[in-house]
């Protein structure tokens, strides 16, 4: 047998290669889009894994601490630590902000970690790629390498400045921002404490309120002021369990006795994947649909034009007795060839461009396989119009009037 499609492709290779490259770039974008979604899910999982927690205790009725804001009194963890089944419980704060170093500023998630150490205290970065962990209770930071910070860099968070003493990897927020770990006290200050002006203003207002400044009650104003300026909160308590404990049982106990909201790992994952990135996922899904339609339109257009150019040859082929199957096969094979060229170009483009994207792009082989078959299906669908036209060509046209 002879491959008419193959011969035509070799003959008109320029058209095929250039269309294939164009289509390939589209497919590449599609694969990267899928990779962005996978990256977001993976970032979410990494966030949960690296927190070292098995339960997340958050403000009652919130989806905190990642998907919604949550605040708890910073002594809540003591009561939780005393619950049966709980091995460790540690405060943690999360605050997404611009972190400045001497050169520029970078968007980061500032994590306040309770005193302790890696492994011993949930919330600590599990491993470092350079430097050391935080050893002092103030003004030291461990930063994710993705932040661009280096050992010894000084960075400013609110009023204080911190020295980067260690670097870690793959510690990112669910939106892909690199993490910067600082001691809990500093982080609480950054997040919850008022600045000097606000403090002064608040004292002035309290002092002006006759209810607090009573001549007959000395010391009341001072007490109120102290209470107002030391209200210490955290965003969540990270909990690890004693070996063999059922997370759901312990979570239920904490909910019942402490009247707090508690999430297990699967619940947290469904919040991150199902709620926090759901809109982004839909957005990406829309893009995938549009890209699929555009790709189909391109393949359909090209195959249709290539077939139009061959109307006379097709009439001749039919006249001399070529079967419809052979002619349809030729067009279909060309569409598929275009798809395969496009997919190869797209896969290469995606693979080489993925690391250049600011967000994590995770290319999963499964997505490539699905993408490959989607491309083939698109090509088959796109060739229908051309095949119908070719089959309608009248062999009598080859003879003419």
């Amino acid at each position, binding site marked *: *047998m*002879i491959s*008419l499609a193959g*011969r*035509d492709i*070799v*003959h*008109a290779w320029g058209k095929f290669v250039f269309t294939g490259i164009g289509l390939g770039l589209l497919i590449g974008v599609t694969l990267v889009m899928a990779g962005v979604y996978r990256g977001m899910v993976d970032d979410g999982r990494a966030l949960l894994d690296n927190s070292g927690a098995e339960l997340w205790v958050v403000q009652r009725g919130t989806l905190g601490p990642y998907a919604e804001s949550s605040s708890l009194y910073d002594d809540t963890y003591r009561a939780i630590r005393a619950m049966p089944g709980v091995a460790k419980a540690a405060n943690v704060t999360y605050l997404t902000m611009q972190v400045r170093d001497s050169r520029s500023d970078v968007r980061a998630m500032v994590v306040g970690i309770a005193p302790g150490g890696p492994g011993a205290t949930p919330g600590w970065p599990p491993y470092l790629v350079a430097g050391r962990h935080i050893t002092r209770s103030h003004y030291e930071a461990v930063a994710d390498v993705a932040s661009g910070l280096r050992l010894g860099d000084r960075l400013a968070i609110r009023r204080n400045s911190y020295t980067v003493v260690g670097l870690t990897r793959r510690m990112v927020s669910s939106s892909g921002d690199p993490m910067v770990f600082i001691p809990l006290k500093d982080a609480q200050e950054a997040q919850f404490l008022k600045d000097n002006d606000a403090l002064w203003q608040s004292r002035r207002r309290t002092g002006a309120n006759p209810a607090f400044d009573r001549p007959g009650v000395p010391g009341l104003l001072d007490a109120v002021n102290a209470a107002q300026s030391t209200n210490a909160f955290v965003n969540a308590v990270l909990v690890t369990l004693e070996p063999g404990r059922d997370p759901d049982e312990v979570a239920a106990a904490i909910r019942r006795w402490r009247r707090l909201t508690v999430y297990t790992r699967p619940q947290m994952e469904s919040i991150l994947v199902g709620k926090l990135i759901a809109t982004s996922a839909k957005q990406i899904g829309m893009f995938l649909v549009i890209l699929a339609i555009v790709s189909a339109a391109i393949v359909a257009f090209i195959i249709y034009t290539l077939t139009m150019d061959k109307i*006379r*040859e097709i009439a*001749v*082929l*039919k*006249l*001399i*007795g*070529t*079967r419809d199957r*052979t002619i349809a096969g030729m067009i279909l094979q060309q569409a598929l060839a275009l798809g395969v060229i496009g997919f190869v170009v797209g896969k290469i483009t995606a693979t080489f461009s993925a690391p250049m994207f600011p967000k994590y792009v995770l290319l999963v082989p499964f997505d490539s396989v699905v993408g490959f078959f989607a491309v083939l299906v698109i090509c088959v669908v796109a060739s229908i119009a051309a095949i119908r036209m070719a089959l309608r060509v009248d*062999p*009598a046209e*080859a*003879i*003419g*009037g």
Partner: protein
Amino acid sequence: MGGKGIRIEGLKKRYGSGDTAVDALKGVDMQVAPGEVVGLIGPSGSGKSTLLKCLGAVIDPTAGRMTLGDEVIYDDGWKVRDLRALRRDKIGFVFQAPYLIPFLDVTDNVALLPMLAGVANAEARSSALELLTALDVQHRARAMPSRLSGGEQQRVAIARGLVNRPPVILADEPTAPLDSERAMTVIRILDDMARKYETAIIVVTHDEKIIPTFRRVYHIRDGVTHEEAGEGRPFDGTG
């Protein structure tokens, strides 16, 4: 001549229906024996192309009978089932323009039909080459059609029409794009082929130069044919 060659009796073709119907063929009789080349001539609009299309099983006649060898193709509205296979196996076409497949080289243009019919590539190519040699274009065997002169293309097209050794070849103005010397060559080739492969060949033409070469000519006018003995002059172009 018996049942050999191609024979039509009372062939009619009506295009359209009602008020706009056109009777392009009004009862045509014709017979061409194996090894014979006949001319089909007539003014524009007389029905030449329509007749050729009916003979080629490209369009179906409205009435009449056509037999090819011993096989009945059409009989008053009845027709054989697979006309495309019939065309592939029994009828060779040579067009006014060569209509070669531009993405196949000369050999494969000729070998295409047997290849599509399942003949091994090597075998199909060797019979193609044999024909190309007979037609004296074997030196262009691996060239692409676009690199060939008009005369070479027409010879390749003739080779393609002959490759399945069809009992009938239909040629529509095969000499139109050629100068008179080459036109003579093409007609001589068709004549040679007709003898060599026992083929019945019908040549539609306007070409005054080649008309005298036919031994038998059918004139067609207003959908009716008249047979005439031709001059049967030699192919030296001096006639």
